[in-house]
């Protein structure tokens, strides 16, 4: 039987990696690659080293290898695809395919600036471009690069190496706006200027001009009227995917370009695949080599019957530009909800380090490094390995323990993401005799892709120490130079009633998705205000704004309160019939109640009308508020029970329901020491004893479980409730945003002993106040859903469209087991509404 014919268009880095991976599979195909460049694949990442003397060998694909693999090379530019007959044309030459792979990369974007076609204007992408730049530079003195991103700085360095006076012009107010933040950008600018390269930020180029109609570049004119004289210009203003072949043959491309692929790298035509920089996966284009390599490996696996999938990639980058090290990795702009930033600036050594941490400070999410990236690989590996940190500051501050942190990386930690090499593999290679970086490269292939992991590879080889100082803050966000506790105190003392007052007196800008819900929560804790009150509703996270939990498809889940997990048969029937009537998926939650999923925004009021008529109340599953007080059945039924734990759970849940807090609050009451309600994993947990109740505080399940601490023993009902009142109000006053009680206690100087002093001994003299605050809460509690149903204006907002009664047609359910669920994206790849491209 004839082998399947694979045609690959493009012999760039990713196209080459695909061939290499496919050869490793041991299966046979009839492969042709179409290559428009004058060389077989070469290392574009290290393109700039082409100007070094002697120029290094950048070739990746070698004729001898291709020949040995049986790969045919067609030299030329693919001009069209005929999908019906499955042929690709290069001019009038025809290549038949069973499987077509588009690895066409991208082209440099040249903005439509007048003068862009003058002699002396270049782009920076191929060996050919570099040849042209070198030739022209021989009669030039000055060169300007337009674009201060990663490639632009690299190009500026190259011009300088060619002996020119070099400048970089950047439209944004800082260099490398995509990778580094403001402070990092400043440090970078200083360093680049120190090397003698002119840096012009916040400059928009109006035109490139010549003199006396010579047709040769003479300078640039900026929008602000200033000019910059130069003999040559290199554009480095971003890249655009080369999707023209796909576009012309009717394959789906993204709104902003890029060939749409699914997790198998398949395009909208089942016989055609796309990989590398030309591919658009989940709305993203990856301009880096590592994700392209991953796609290449995935595709090779898919075509040989494997199960690998491309599930997106990290945009971490590290580079050395003219001797300046720059890196950004993971969530470098702290976009994760609750993320905290910690930074360290050393103006003497010229280094800037910022790390982004999870809200509780135990996970590293990302960061930015300028001037010293020696720890880049270690930090990226910490992100990927999801290591639990006990002292995150040690990742960036001077310490003589740097080696310990590195040594603590697990063997499974990924060191080289280009070549998929784990720490374990490197350690094995070292044990087997590799004694330097070159040895590790040969043995494992680590560090042979983008090179970003070199430092970490060396670190694994011989850990070294770092020495620096520290700047840390816990501001809520960029709009307030205040912590949550400071905000709380200010609002309480000044009696502010709305966000505008707080922002006007203590903040800047318009606020954001971090500070708005934080202030709304504080106002709710302080004044028991209706969360949808005019002006407050726009501050709330969507869950609070529509009093339900938003799901991944934009529908909501509905959770009525079932205090203590207790529910009557009539209640269950009512819930059942509501769910049936509105077609909701039902499930028992981990919090001892029933959740109904898949409610459309416009259905919520109707659902609640029926639930409230049946005697239910809001369960506040959506709020940073009391969730549930779980119970065990206790002495009323259980043969071991020593107190009526269910009655106590119901009482506590009804007392604290609706209480807004820095984070959600959970509780449980067990009827005896067997602890069936798992009270020791709760923010406040109660376990019955022969003489009363033991109170446990600051437990946590979830991401970082913590056993609760025994706070007080054998309490009578009244004392128990008094202590809990004080405890909760003290937490609400002093915790950080999104800080559960467990983390709050761990960070509290003096710990549980101090807490006992405050709550039991009233050492701060505030207990009367705390109790009064709680009494106010109990008195003013109202079911938010009941209040909303009585308010026609608020009811009107529960509509998908302001100008139509139609429903969201993007919400689609799929049958699953005996119920249904929202459709997964891959199940509707064919019909994405956003991909309509007008050819203009």
């Amino acid at each position, binding site marked *: 039987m004839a082998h399947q014919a694979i045609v690959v268009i493009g012999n760039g880095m990713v196209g080459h990696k695909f061939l290499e991976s496919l050869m490793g599979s041991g299966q046979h195909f009839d492969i042709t690659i179409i290559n428009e460049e004058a060389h077989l694949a070469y290392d574009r990442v290290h393109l700039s080293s082409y100007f070094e003397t002697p120029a290094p060998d950048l070739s990746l694909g070698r004729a001898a290898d291709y020949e040995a693999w049986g790969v045919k090379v067609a030299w030329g530019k693919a001009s069209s695809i005929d999908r019906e007959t499955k042929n690709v044309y290069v001019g009038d030459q025809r290549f038949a395919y069973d499987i077509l792979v588009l690895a066409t990369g991208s082209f440099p974007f040249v*903005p*439509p600036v007048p003068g862009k076609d003058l002699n002396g204007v270049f782009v920076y992408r191929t060996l050919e471009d570099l040849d042209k730049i070198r030739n022209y530079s021989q009669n030039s003195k000055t060169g300007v690069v337009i674009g201060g991103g990663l490639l632009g700085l690299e190009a500026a360095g190259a011009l300088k190496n060619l002996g020119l006076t070099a400048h970089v012009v950047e439209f*944004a*107010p800082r260099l490398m706006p*995509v990778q580094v933040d*403001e402070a990092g950008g400043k440090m970078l600018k200083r360093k680049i200027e120190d090397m003698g390269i002119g840096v012009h930020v916040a400059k928009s180029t109006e035109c490139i001009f010549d003199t006396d109609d010579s047709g040769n570049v003479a300078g640039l004119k900026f929008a602000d009227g200033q000019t910059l004289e130069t003999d040559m210009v290199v554009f480095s203003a971003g890249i*655009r995917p080369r999707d*023209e072949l796909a*576009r012309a043959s009717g394959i789906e491309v993204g*709104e*902003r*370009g890029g060939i749409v692929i699914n997790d198998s790298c398949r395009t909208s035509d089942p016989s055609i695949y796309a990989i590398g920089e030309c591919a658009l996966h989940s*709305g*993203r*284009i990856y*301009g880096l080599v590592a994700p392209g390599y991953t796609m290449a490996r995935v595709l090779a696996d898919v075509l040989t019957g494997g199960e690998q999938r491309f599930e997106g990639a990290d*945009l971490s980058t590290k580079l050395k530009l003219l001797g300046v090290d720059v890196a950004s990795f993971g969530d470098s*702009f702290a*976009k*994760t*909800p609750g993320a905290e930033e910690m930074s360290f600036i050393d103006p003497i050594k010229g280094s800037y380090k910022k790390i982004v941490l999870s809200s509780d400070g135990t996970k590293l999410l990302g960061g930015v490094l300028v001037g010293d990236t020696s720890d880049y690989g270690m930090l990226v590996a910490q992100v990927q390995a999801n290591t639990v940190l006990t002292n995150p500051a040690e990742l960036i501050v001077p310490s003589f323990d740097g080696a310990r942190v590195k040594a603590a990386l697990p063997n499974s930690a990924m060191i080289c993401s280009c070549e998929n090499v784990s720490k374990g593999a490197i350690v094995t290679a070292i044990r087997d005799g590799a004694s330097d970086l070159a040895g590790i490269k040969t043995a494992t292939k680590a560090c042979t892709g983008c090179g970003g992991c070199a430092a970490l590879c060396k670190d694994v080889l011989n850990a070294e120490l770092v020495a620096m100082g520290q700047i840390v803050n816990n501001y809520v966000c960029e*709009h307030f130079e205040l912590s949550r506790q400071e905000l709380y105190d200010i609002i309480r003392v000044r009696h502010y009633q709305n966000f*505008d007052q707080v922002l006007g007196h203590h903040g*800047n*800008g*318009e*606020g*954001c*998705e971090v500070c*708005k*819900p934080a202030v709304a929560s504080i106002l709710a804790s302080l004044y028991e205000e209706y969360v949808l009150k*005019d*002006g407050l*509703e*726009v*501050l709330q*996270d*969507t*869950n609070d*704004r529509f009093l339900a939990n*938003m799901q*991944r*498809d*934009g529908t909501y889940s509905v959770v009525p309160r079932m205090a203590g997990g207790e529910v009557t048969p009539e209640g269950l029937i009512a819930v059942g019939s509501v769910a049936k009537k509105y077609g909701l998926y039902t499930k028992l939650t981990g919090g001892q109640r029933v959740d109904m999923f898949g409610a459309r*925004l416009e259905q919520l009021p109707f659902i609640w009308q029926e639930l409230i008529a049946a005697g239910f109340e809001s369960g506040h599953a959506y709020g940073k508020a009391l969730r549930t007080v779980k119970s065990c059945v206790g002495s009323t039924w259980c043969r071991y029970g020593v107190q009526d734990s269910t009655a106590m759970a119901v009482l506590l849940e009804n007392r604290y329901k609706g209480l807004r807090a820095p984070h959600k609050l959970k509780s449980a009451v067990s009827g005896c020491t067997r602890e069936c309600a798992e009270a020791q994993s709760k923010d406040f947990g109660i376990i019955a004893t022969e003489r009363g109740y033991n109170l446990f505080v600051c437990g946590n399940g979830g991401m970082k479980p913590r056993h609760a601490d025994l706070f007080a023993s054998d309490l009578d009902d009244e004392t128990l409730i008094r202590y809990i009142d004080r405890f909760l109000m003290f937490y609400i006053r002093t915790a950080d945003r999104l800080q559960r009680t467990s983390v709050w206690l761990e960070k509290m100087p003096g710990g549980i002993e101090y807490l006992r002093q405050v709550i039991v001994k009233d050492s701060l003299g505030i207990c009367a106040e705390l109790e009064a605050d709680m009494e106010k809460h109990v008195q003013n509690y109202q079911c938010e859903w009941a209040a909303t149903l009585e308010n026609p204006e608020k009811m009107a*907002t529960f509509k*998908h*469209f*302001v*100008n*139509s009664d*139609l429903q*969201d047609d*993007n*919400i689609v359910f799929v049958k699953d087991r005996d119920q249904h669920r929202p459709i997964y994206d891959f199940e509707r790849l064919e019909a994405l*509404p*956003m991909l309509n491209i*007008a*050819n*203009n």
Partner: protein
Amino acid sequence: MSTAIATKPLETTWTDICNLEQIPVAGGVNALVENTQVAIFRTRENKLFAVSNFDPFSKANVMSRGIFGSTKRDGRDVYKIASPILKNTFDLETGQSFDDLSVFLRVFNVKLEAGRVLIGVLW
């Protein structure tokens, strides 16, 4: 071949949507405009922004239900919107995502006439 930047004005069709007062201050609503969902936001100064209601990260029609705010860019405050699902934020003027600069929300023309909000679509 088309480039990503639309410079020449095509035909703009204006659709009347709602009264200004129907949009909460510093908040948004979703409108149906010729089969397209458009999220409209109103600032405290009654400036209006309109972008696609479709969140490209979560692939759900939810942007109007996000939190409106601002962030400092180039030394000035730019208005932004945070998706309610995974909290990805976008520049309301350009539609560009702050998380991934290659991702955009489509931006629509919007104007206020005699207290009515109108959305203009370039077709």
